[in-house]
């Protein structure tokens, strides 16, 4: 049987979207720190402004360095195109603004990043966009929450910080029954661990700040178009299927076919909302993506070792560990789903509960002592760094949630979230050991 050859994931991580710079031969991606681009003539300028031909006009809308990262991430995810943004939050906002206006409604997983929750619960309602939150395991609830005005279902492959695993295929089917797309925030898994388009998702977003960048240096986001959703057949997305006066009546679905969403996201969303990625940040993130496969292997290796250690502490029954959550554990509610969806590893975030001593205070106090005793884990509001990180979600990333919303998001006061880095695993375990001792001493 004849067959075509395609470059594989590890190779594309290094090469997709780039060739040596034709002007200089530079092998690395040049950092194009330019606001704008000289037109070859008046006709070319007019054609660029009217979307008659491809090219760069102004770096808010597109930039050659950023375009390399966009094409690379689209390729790694298997999407038709991508738009990079100033942050992951900007990517989520861009996706929503491209799909709907006032009167729109979103059904979102209740277990999502606190910043995304803030946007959906508190900020977008001011602009007439409402969100219903449903537990990611409650598939009937997701179906029931969809209204005639719903325009998007949104969730994370791995819930934040509870590590619930979203059944992407089933949730996609529910969304598609209603003629609406599924947007997946795949930040925690990266395309190395999960490619949501292969499971039925229509749009994917990342905070590139995390594992894609991998070194905690640059803020950035991306939204990627799977190109499969039939906007025309749905009939619910006039931004993509009806003439748009912003470009002399262009109909994006008619003009761009599978790339309709991403074309409008750039042509309108970046042009008007302006949350573009800096070329300097794109360069930093590209350096990270080059080693994504290697780093993810290391993250997973260390995460599994740390889970083993914490399980040991838990099973000893007298330590400070009250529970451990990681989707590869057999007692995790989504263990079987994780084995199917994430065969190469369930990420490098681990949650566990810290037990209060009973003398020195409750779990919140024990958590404080644990975090302050750590010497190798850094206490900060990020995940996916090459360095190991720790945070107490109830007092930081999810601090805006009241008790009820905290419970709905699966965040207890005793929860500690670890982001496992690439240090020697024995050093990490030693650090955890001494900090757990400090937490229980009271």
């Amino acid at each position, binding site marked *: *049987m*004849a*067959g*075509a*050859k*395609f*470059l594989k994931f590890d*190779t*594309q991580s290094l*090469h*997709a*979207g*780039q*060739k*040596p710079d034709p002007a200089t031969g530079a092998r690395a991606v040049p950092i194009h720190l330019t606001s704008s681009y000289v037109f070859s003539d008046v*006709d070319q300028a*007019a*054609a660029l402004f*009217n*979307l*008659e*031909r*491809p*090219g*760069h006009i102004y770096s808010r809308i*597109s*930039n*050659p360095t*950023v*375009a*390399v990262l*966009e*094409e690379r991430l*689209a*390729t790694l995810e*298997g*999407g*038709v*195109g*991508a*738009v*990079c943004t100033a942050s992951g939050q900007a990517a989520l906002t861009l996706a929503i603004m491209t799909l709907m206006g006032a009167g729109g409604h979103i059904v979102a997983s209740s277990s999502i990043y606190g910043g995304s929750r803030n946007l959906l619960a508190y900020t977008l309602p001011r602009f007439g966009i409402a969100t219903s939150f449903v537990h990611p395991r409650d598939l009937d609830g997701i179906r029931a929450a969809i209204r005639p005005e719903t325009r998007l279902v949104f969730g994370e492959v791995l819930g934040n910080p509870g590590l619930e695993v979203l059944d992407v295929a089933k949730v996609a089917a529910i969304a598609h029954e209603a003629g609406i797309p599924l947007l997946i925030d795949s930040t925690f898994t990266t395309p190395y661990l999960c490619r949501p388009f292969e499971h039925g998702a229509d749009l994917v977003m990342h905070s590139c700040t995390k594992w894609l960048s991998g070194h905690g240096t640059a803020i950035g986001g991306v939204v990627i178009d*799977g*190109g*499969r959703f*039939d906007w*025309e057949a749905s009939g619910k997305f006039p931004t993509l299927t009806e003439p748009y006066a912003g470009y*002399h*009546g*262009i109909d994006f679905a*008619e*003009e*761009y*076919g*599978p*790339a309709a969403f*991403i074309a409008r996201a*750039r042509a309108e969303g970046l042009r008007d909302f302006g949350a573009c990625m800096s070329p300097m940040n794109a360069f930093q993130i590209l350096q990270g993506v080059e080693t994504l496969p290697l780093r993810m292997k290391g993250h997973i290796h260390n995460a599994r070792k740390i889970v083993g250690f914490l399980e040991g502490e838990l099973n000893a029954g007298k330590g400070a560990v009250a529970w451990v959550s990681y989707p590869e554990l057999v007692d995790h509610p989504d263990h079987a789903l994780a084995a199917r969806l994430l065969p190469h590893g369930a990420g490098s975030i681990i949650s566990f509960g810290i037990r209060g001593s009973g003398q020195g205070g409750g779990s919140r106090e024990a958590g404080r002592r644990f975090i302050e005793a750590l010497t190798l884990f850094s206490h900060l509001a990020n995940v996916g760094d090459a360095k190991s990180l720790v945070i107490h979600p109830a007092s930081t990333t999810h601090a805006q949630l009241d008790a009820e919303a905290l419970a709905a998001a699966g965040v207890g006061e005793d929860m500690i979230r670890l982001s496992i880095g690439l240090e020697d695993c024995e050093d990490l375990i030693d650090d955890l050991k001494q900090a757990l001792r400090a937490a229980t001493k009271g």
Partner: protein
Amino acid sequence: MQLTVNGNPVFVHTGGRDIAPARPAIVLIHGAGMDHSVWSLQSRYLAHHGRSVLAVDLPGHGRSGGEPLGSIAALADWVIALLDAAGLERAALVGHSMGALVALDAAARHGGRVEAVALLGVAERMPVHPDLLTAAHAGEQSAIEMVIGWGHGPRGHGGAQGGGCPAPGLALIPGGRRLMASVRPGVLGVDLAACNDYGQGADAAAMVACPVLFLLGALDRMTPAKAGRSLAACVKTSQVVVLPQTGHMVMAEAPDSVLEALKSFLSLSRG
């Protein structure tokens, strides 16, 4: 724009402007298993440079109704019926791959209706690998993978020397894969069989009286540039442009070069 051709509904993308008698018509004809959106980096430009654009969805493709037609000759006759339905006496025909054979055949047998012809990714014969034909008839994903994989040059596949879609942020191979996946079951097999069975390329080329532009990808593995040149040699008035670093999907891989060549060939100017 919706038309009715031979009793079936036909969708025609007009590049963002209505067709008008004052602007001479140009018909853009897509290849096997595709639709009008393969011209998305050309159609809008042409419509704003003095042409009435008809980027068609062939029968059974894209937004058009009907069944796919089983031969290049039937498709060529259909293009002329399309002109009738649109009230157009003459048009320039621009075709890619299977669409190029259609344009060539139409120009040969309906010379009075064709002003000029541009053929992209074309050869006198387009024999289709038996494994591809079998997979396409069976509706297997491997058929799409073969067309997309063999069809793209280095700008699609990437690698140390390639990579870099001319349209910022787009990825050519996933884009092509999605477009072909949206085509109705069975259509690709009918299209590829029509290409495989067409043996009149050289005879048709000799009959064409109007000027013909050949736009060939230097790295085209499906219709090698050498075969395109041979076909061009059969035409009375031909012009050949070979696009470097370009495979079979010339409109997506080298959109600016395609536009510049068409602009020169058709004497386009803004308006």
